[in-house]
């Protein structure tokens, strides 16, 4: 077992608790996708943690909680035959052509997304995530030829996944850092991460600002503790996104 792996093993428990900070969290995130032993131990820790609430003094939820969930569930997903109920009578002649058109549009969108992702499939869940509603940012290698990244942001605008390929593994003491740059404002960090021996990484991201407020999204190389503002050139970057 390498010294590096021993150090990573020390952090599996804290990682399972979501209690690790950067850059160790990013290193663990990249490591568990490649190490069966640590992944297995992580799964066991997560299962144990998932069972801890069973040991708490039980509390019954209020009855109105289910009423509210039921009402919201019906609003968010129409019942069978609901399409006809919610479309005014005068427009019902357009129901089926509209539905076919929407389905064709969604299919085209998914095909486009999958084509974008499949150029260099960087992570195990990218294809599944790409089919979900959300936004896709494609970063291209301006500072590193051949490097690229895909940032998939969920509909809540806050949770995302970053898939990277083509960046070289860094020496100890250095890290990669993601930035969200507003127009005329200080760049905001999206976290640090490391790539594996193949130059790839798959990282969960908390998006710090709205994509609508960001002017540039970029990745730089920084000291291992991360920086408060980019000190290196943009290695991969994006200036436009949907």
């Amino acid at each position, binding site marked *: 077992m390498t010294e590096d792996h021993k150090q990573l093993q*020390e*952090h*599996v*428990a*804290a990682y*399972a*608790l*979501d*209690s*690790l*900070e950067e850059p160790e969290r990013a290193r663990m995130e990249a490591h568990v996708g490649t190490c069966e032993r640590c992944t297995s*131990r992580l*799964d*066991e*820790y*997560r*299962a*144990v*943690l*998932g*069972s*801890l*609430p*069973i*040991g*708490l*003094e*039980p*509390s*019954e*939820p*209020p009855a*109105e*909680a*289910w009423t*509210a*969930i*039921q009402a*919201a*569930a*019906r609003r*968010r*997903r*129409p*019942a*069978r035959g609901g399409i006809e109920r919610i479309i005014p009578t005068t427009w019902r002649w357009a129901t089926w052509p509209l539905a076919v058109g929407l389905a064709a549009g969604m299919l085209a969108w998914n095909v486009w997304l999958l084509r974008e992702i499949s150029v260099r499939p960087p992570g195990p*869940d990218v294809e*599944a995530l790409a089919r*979900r509603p959300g936004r896709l940012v494609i970063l291209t290698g301006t500072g590193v030829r051949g490097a690229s990244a895909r940032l998939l942001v*969920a*509909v*809540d605008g806050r949770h995302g996944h970053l898939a990277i390929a083509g960046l070289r593994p860094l020496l100890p003491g250095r890290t990669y850092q993601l930035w969200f740059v507003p127009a005329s404002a200080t760049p905001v960090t999206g976290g640090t991460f490391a790539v594996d021996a193949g130059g790839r990484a798959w990282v969960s991201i908390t998006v710090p600002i709205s994509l609508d407020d960001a002017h540039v999204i970029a990745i730089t190389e920084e000291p291992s503790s991360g920086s408060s503002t980019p000190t290196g050139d943009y290695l991969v970057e994006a200036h436009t996104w949907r």
Partner: protein
Amino acid sequence: MSDSGSRDRRPRAGTGLDEPADLDLLSRMRGGDEVALEVLYKRYAGLVFTLALRIVGDRELAREVLQDAFLRCWDGRETYDAGRGRVPWWLIGIARNRAIDLLRSRPHQARLREGEILPGNARTSDPSPSEAADAVGLRRAITSALENLPMAQRRAIELAYYGGRTQSEIASELGEPLGTVKSWTREAMERLRISLWPLIDPKREE
């Protein structure tokens, strides 16, 4: 309304019998089956609410977390990955994340919470009439495993799991070096794993 599982709302230890039923419910929910949603809710809402209440310390906020967690499962904002363990653990993970987000975004609620008596761990008391024997056994085992941890290790785990604290925040709060907290966390999780994993391993019934 049918409930193919037991009346007990808690995941049974290692039986494996609830697994296909939970997966079937999720599959039906993806198709818009509200009955499946209600069955899943009746099965796990108590557990999810209990966890949420422990974290946020307020019944109204805990209700928000509960509703948000189930609706996120319903509308597909959260998708289940069988490789990550059983359905109830996944649900608990969703609820915990939402509860900690809420805790962090409402600091005044957190300050109120510090002054309240939180629902603590269950004592190894007599079971309620509706609890199945294996659920009682698991609850006792979990309580016992936590009580057997050295107090410092237990506190580190609880601050991380229920408080959403980072290792540095825990070190600062307890007035201990970061390395010490990391050791406590690692040792505590390993003790819990040794005690509890044999009881909850999904492959136990194979």
